[in-house]
């Protein structure tokens, strides 16, 4: 289980591969990997977005993410979990969040990764401030339910 907060851009594929290689005991044991990647878009609520600043509460972020991953591990037989979240100044097309879950069977991987993402969205103390093309800045006021 690994939880990382990154102040610099990260490459989700390198993160996953690095994690799989360091967790050698997984080879041959897992049958399913479910991965979610959230990426910064260049538009939101009808406006062109130039960039974003992601603030967080150091310490509480890690504590809450560890709780969430532990909850998932209690509910589904997960073999391993990797969570990476970006903070600081972010540009469109930058990955913001990566959640990867390794399990024996696919249903558990899908369920656990989705659980972690939904819980992260509602409980991990991150806040996004958008910089619009118009130079205006605005704090995002709430996270969506994932469908809007």
């Amino acid at each position, binding site marked *: 289980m690994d939880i990382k907060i990154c102040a610099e851009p990260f490459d989700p594929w390198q993160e996953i591969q690095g994690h799989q290689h360091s967790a050698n005991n997984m080879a041959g044991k897992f049958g399913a990997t479910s991965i979610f990647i959230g990426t910064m878009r260049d538009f939101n609520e009808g406006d062109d977005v130039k960039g974003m600043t992601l603030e967080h*509460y150091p310490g509480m972020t890690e504590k809450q993410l560890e709780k969430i991953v532990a909850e998932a591990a209690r509910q589904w037989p997960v073999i391993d979990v990797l969570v990476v979240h970006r903070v600081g100044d972010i540009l469109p097309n930058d990955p913001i969040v990566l959640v990867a879950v390794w399990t024996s069977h696919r249903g558990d991987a899908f369920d656990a990764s989705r659980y972690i*993402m939904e819980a992260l969205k509602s409980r991990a103390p991150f806040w996004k*401030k958008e910089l619009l093309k118009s130079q205006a800045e605005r704090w*995002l006021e709430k*996270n969506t339910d994932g469908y809007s």
Partner: protein
Amino acid sequence: MSIKVRYFASLKESIGRSEDNLEFSGPATVGDVWHRANPDKTLPDNSLAAVNMDYVELNSAVKDGDEVAFFPPVTGG
């Protein structure tokens, strides 16, 4: 007792401070901490509060050395 208070994101900007350090002589709740630190400002309705990095309700008691945080709804992921 000493309480450290922290503010984040839009709430920090609207208050104009990121931290306060308060002293209380008797028992206090998280809500009391807000009122003492910000006597002229109501905590926005959708705000969240944490003590020692765990979410709490405003009527939770605080104790000496606690770190209390107030912040708007989270928008990560």
